[in-house]
């Protein structure tokens, strides 16, 4: 015994009990470590007058402790970390607790229908089309406005009008990129139709339409990680659609993402910006002309202004600004999930030994490796970020691009040519 009461100098590498503990915790232990520090472990047993049995039990219950059927008590990992000084207590613990996910279980159901992009009619001629069109397409009946190139009927089928067959193959392909088509084996699962009436809309508002946000996490498209898109409604905050694939390339996904957003009443797209995300954003903007993409804001003490940076900067589960909000939304039952796959993926997230959130399949790999992993939960978190910025519903669907061949399209073309003529210098006329 070196820690004598006269000097209190600790020189022994063996642990000395300076204040004994009790049945709840240690008291005060000290030893000299290799770095010549006195390493002191201080537990609740050192102060039994303050840390009474009742106080400790109330903290245990507050921090996730449970009374087991056999009468014993099991401490939650938070209590073990905060009060019993276990630095690795969080390792392996689920991020989304089972009770939070159990609340979602009654809402899980099969999708209403499935959709996908199909560009194959671009290569057909009108006589070939009359012999038969792919699933989800049809030709107009004589009573329908046949002059419009492409429209959607009340059953959700895509109608290819007479004007469509007058276009070149490339122009047809460009038009078809904007339209999702109902397919039995489609890759996009739809739970909520965009034409459904918003919940809570006053009866006086007849023209209100639902608003949506689509979050997208982008993988590499070489079967390493999943590229995902999750759509949430603005009014009820429930899952409207889901896409997930580990084979789609970022460029193709940008086209698909723009079509999903157009289908969902010009939804607010929230893709990630890191790595392949920038390819998705560029495809949406340049190839598809879809510009309703979430952008960052620059905040100062007095103002908050729009930044030019499109998309969310990261896509990692360790990013508390992104995933922390999603965890809170799931915990407080503010969001409703319909997809069993998405629901199941939530139970696969754990805390690693450093206390960071990670997918349990990735717990052993480096942080850099985790950054490349796309996932549906990250897609949901991004969509939630977009939903927080949206109103509950809108008055009218904003007109993005008029369908080629429609009356409005021809008016726009005429207007643009008139403007160009007026703007031209006098010598060119």
């Amino acid at each position: 015994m070196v820690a004598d009461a006269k000097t209190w100098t600790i020189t022994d590498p063996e642990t000395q009990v300076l204040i004994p503990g009790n049945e709840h915790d240690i008291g005060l232990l000290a030893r000299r470590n290799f770095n010549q520090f006195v390493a002191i472990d201080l537990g609740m047993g050192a102060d039994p007058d303050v840390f009474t049995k009742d106080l400790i039990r109330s903290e245990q219950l507050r921090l996730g402790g449970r009374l087991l059927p056999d009468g014993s008590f099991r401490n939650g990992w938070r209590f073990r970390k905060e009060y019993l000084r276990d630095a690795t207590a969080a390792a392996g613990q689920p991020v989304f607790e089972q009770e939070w996910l159990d609340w979602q279980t009654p809402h899980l159901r099969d999708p209403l229908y499935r959709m996908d992009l199909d560009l194959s009619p671009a290569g057909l001629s009108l006589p070939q089309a009359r012999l038969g069109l792919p699933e989800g397409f049809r030709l107009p009946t004589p009573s329908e406005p046949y002059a419009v190139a492409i429209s959607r009927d009340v059953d959700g089928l895509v109608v290819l009008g007479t004007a469509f067959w007058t276009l070149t193959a490339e122009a047809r392909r460009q038009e078809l990129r904007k339209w999702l088509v109902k397919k039995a084996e489609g890759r996009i699962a739809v739970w909520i139709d965009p034409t459904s009436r918003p919940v809570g809309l006053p009866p006086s508002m007849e023209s209100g339409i639902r608003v949506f946000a689509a979050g997208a996490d982008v993988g590499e498209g070489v079967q390493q990680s999943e590229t995902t898109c999750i759509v949430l409604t603005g009014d009820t905050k429930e899952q409207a659609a889901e896409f997930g694939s580990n084979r789609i390339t970022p460029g193709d996904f940008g086209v698909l993402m723009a079509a999903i957003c157009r289908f969902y009443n010009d939804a607010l797209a929230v893709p990630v910006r890191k790595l392949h995300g920038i390819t998705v954003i560029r495809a949406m903007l340049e190839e598809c002309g879809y510009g309703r993409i979430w952008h960052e804001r620059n905040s100062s003490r007095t103002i908050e202004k729009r930044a030019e940076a499109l998309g969310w900067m990261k896509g990692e589960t360790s990013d508390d600004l992104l995933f922390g909000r999603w965890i809170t939304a799931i915990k407080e039952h503010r969001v409703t999930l319909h997809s069993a796959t998405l629901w199941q993926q939530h139970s696969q997230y754990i805390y690693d030994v450093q206390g960071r959130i990670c997918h349990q399949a990735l717990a052993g790999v480096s942080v850099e490796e985790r950054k490349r992993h796309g996932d549906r939960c990250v897609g949901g978190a991004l969509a939630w970020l977009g939903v927080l910025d949206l109103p509950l519903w809108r008055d009218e669907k904003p007109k993005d691009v008029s369908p080629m061949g429609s009356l409005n399209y021809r008016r726009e073309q005429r207007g643009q040519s008139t403007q160009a003529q007026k703007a031209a210098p006098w010598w060119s006329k």
Partner: protein
Amino acid sequence: MDTHGNEKSIRPFPHDRPHVHAMTDLWLHNQLISIRKSRQMLMTWWGAATCLWDVLHPGKLIVQQSKKLEDAVGNEWVGDGPLGRTKFMLAHIPGKSVIGLVEGRDYVKRETHIDFKQLGSAVVAIPEGGSQIRQKTASGIFSDESNFQPEFGDSYAAAIPCIRGGAWFLSISTAELGAAHDLHNDQMADR
């Protein structure tokens, strides 16, 4: 200061709690101390009290380090953060004018430090990082919640010349993995 909503929020420091007495004796007789503690053990208050006691001696530069400067500075009006608690206790020393502690004459409180002009001493709050300590020749270093400072390893390395010169080093934290955890558990060689 007890901010837990009790009726009497400002009370004398509970020096009679058994571990507080023992910790003070340990600090008096050991230059380097690393404490891994449970929550609510009053250790940050105790650390601030030791800093205050030491800075009331001539020629002392005491450094209080936390993850961010705001954390280290805290708020003296509610007794938050190491420096905020030091300022709070300094403001509430009974009969301090009698023992020669008049604000403005004997000491000056600044945003990030307290200067004791007559004694030639000061207590300074700094954020985490080795470069923050490197430029100071400290007589004592109090690292609060050191397990939550990602750059604690650099801070400790930068503090070694001060330690060799006789400065005390006090690291206090609740449990978390990091350099301070490794220092406590003899695993610094792995870093």
